[in-house]
């Protein structure tokens, strides 16, 4: 049986990779993908803790996270495609015009 700390450690590593990805990368698609990684790391942590506490609520939360993430991807990709249609470039520093 895999110790709980290993699973939570893996979740934390995935979360950190996702967070660094959002902050360091400049392509909206990659940034969005990194944000989704953060969500999935949370789902993984929920499942690990659900096994630790022998309760179902963590698993319910994991299912809800997966479902919501699917909805968010649908909306997110649509917005990214619309922006790409207008600019034909995908770089958040170039897209960013509003300052102040």
């Amino acid at each position, binding site marked *: 049986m895999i110790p709980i700390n290993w699973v*939570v450690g893996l*979740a934390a590593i995935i*979360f950190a990779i*996702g*967070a660094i990805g*959002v902050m360091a990368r400049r392509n*909206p698609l990659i*940034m*969005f993908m990194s*944000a*989704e*990684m*953060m*969500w999935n*790391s*949370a*789902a993984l*942590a*929920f499942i*690990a*803790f659900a096994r*630790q*506490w022998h*309760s179902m*609520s*963590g698993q*319910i*939360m994991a299912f*809800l*996270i997966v479902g*919501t993430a699917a*909805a*968010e991807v649908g*909306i*997110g990709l*649509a*917005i*990214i495609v*619309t*922006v790409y249609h*207008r*600019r034909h470039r995908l770089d*958040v520093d170039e*897209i*960013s*015009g*509003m300052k*102040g």
Partner: protein
Amino acid sequence: MSSFHLMLPEYLVVGFVLLALLGNMLVGNRFRLASWLGLIGLLSSFVASASIWSHSLQPQVMISGGVVVDNYSLLVNLFVLLAGIGAILLGWGERRWGQEFPVLTMISVLGMMILGLAGNTIVLFLGIEVLSLPLYILSASEHTTAGGEAGLKYLLLGAFSSGILLFGLALLYGALGSLSFIRFASLANTTSPLLWAGFTLTLAGIFFKLGIVPFHMWVPDVYEGSPSAVTQLMAFGTKVGAAAILLRFLDWGFYLSPQWWGPALGYLAVLTMIVGNLLALPQTDLKRLLGYSGIGHAGFLLVGVATHNLDGARAMLFYLLPYGFAVLGAFAVLILVAGNQDTVTISDLKGLAGRRPLMAAFFIIVMLSFAGIPLTGGFVGKFYLLQAALFANQPGLAIGLVVGTLLGLGAYLRPVQALFSVADESRATPVWTVSGAVVLIVAVIGTIGLGVYPTPVVHLVNQSANFFWLH
């Protein structure tokens, strides 16, 4: 009362969302129909919330502690439905934003209502997502480059902040073994690194939605690029939803351990009040100015949470209403002045006092309420917050509040000053529209009413803040 009756406001919104979706598919003149259905749905939900309200309503816990209907959740319902009705009226007849505008507004309002009901972290997460997902689409619905940019920024930072929130919730679950706020209070009496990390990340996620200073970068850009009616919904409704869940989460889940979060919240509140109002000073775009003002007001709201007493909770809940009325009024004027333009700068307001004296007078009233001048609701709200901070023996918060208010005064008087300068002859005189006039008049009556005779609302707020003692 049956659980169906207690949840009727939410069910009504869901029902009218489905009706409006069906109507959009079946009927020819779609935009008009969807707007009417949205208006009727939100109004009926408003009436249903008001009818459930009673002095003796005991908190009703449903769905194994996930949903709590009490006077607090009903007050949140009334506030966010006001914001939603305002958004639909301000977007009335705007074909640019498409026929899905009323439907998405309703879904977003539903998410804010869910945040008022939340009793465990599952419902907290669902509420935040139901609120955010339609707003991503709405903020990108202006067909300009700024619109796409606003949508993209909101989407990326929203997904990022939701990720932080979710991981925080997962760690909290790991440390405490429960998802329910009320259970947190009895379990969270020992500090473990897991608990501390989860708590911090969760708060950071909620602060992102509320626009508290280190997490505020997205607010002005998103406010500027979004359609004005949507910005109004974000400025009023989202702030109510996020503030409601913050208060419930902290005062139910971590009531017994304020030493963890009280000081941190206090420092953030002072920082937010000062930075938000300071950055509002040099703005020329009116929506951007209101965005920074929204950050400043989020700081004022945080004062009520940071004091951690009943007075603070009451003052925060009360402050939401004058702020909301002022937002409704300011955006109504902004939309009337804008006409077919995308943006309104301060110079667009020049000469309004001569051309449309009544509109200018109403605009002055809501700006004075933002600034907190006596006889407006904003003054009474700030007074209660100041009182709560002093009762809690936190003079630092009170000083921050006064400094923030003074800085804000400078920011809000600049647009007022522009009203009286010489008009630019090339600009057309703004035209009154029925829906804009209705929103503006309600907002002005509310602002002055709260400033002159706040007692009825204070009673409502005091009853709804009683959730504070339920453990």
